[in-house]
């Protein structure tokens, strides 16, 4: 069953990668990268059980904690761009 789970996770990763490459939209790529992040948490946790070494769980924990930072970075980036555009619109 663990093997099946790993295979499914790898398959979903492949889908996310395809989407990250083919989609015309920037945000789809970000969504794909984000999806990839949570799948990596699951993959590492499952692999650690498959290989029987619980030390790997620390890595999954690290990803679970800090993986969403880059998405927040993207959010700040869009806000900054909007702010800059507003500033330029105000300036004649």
């Amino acid at each position, binding site marked *: 069953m663990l093997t099946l*789970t790993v295979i499914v996770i790898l398959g979903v990763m492949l889908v996310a990668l395809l989407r990250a490459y083919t989609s015309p939209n*920037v945000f789809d790529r970000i969504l794909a990268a984000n999806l990839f992040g949570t799948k990596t948490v699951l993959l590492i946790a499952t692999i650690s059980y498959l290989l029987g070494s619980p030390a790997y769980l620390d890595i999954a924990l690290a990803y679970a904690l800090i993986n969403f930072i880059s998405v927040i970075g993207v*959010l700040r980036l869009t806000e900054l761009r909007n702010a800059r555009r507003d500033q330029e619109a105000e300036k004649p």
Partner: protein
Amino acid sequence: MSTILAWTSDACLLVGSFLLLTGALGFLRFNDFYARIHACGVTETLATALIILGLLLQSDSATPQFKLALILLFVLFSSPTASHALAKAAWNAGLRPRDNSGKRGIPLPPRER
């Protein structure tokens, strides 16, 4: 007792994997960005919970169980937050949802614009 645990764990992993696949399908097939976020975000949360629960039932010592519980907790916090932040970023950048016929013609709420 342990066979019951093993069965439950297998069932959790199976359902979790199935949910992951449905999420991936939604990500691949929906034609609107916000629908895709929805498909990923919703299935992801439950699938992660189920898979980690399945792993939790397989372990017999306390430390990995504790770590798995922490991972679950943090994923439950961070994954919806990431979806929220991403949707907000897309909205800020001017991406608007489509209606059923595929046009981006949904009227904006009165406060915006």
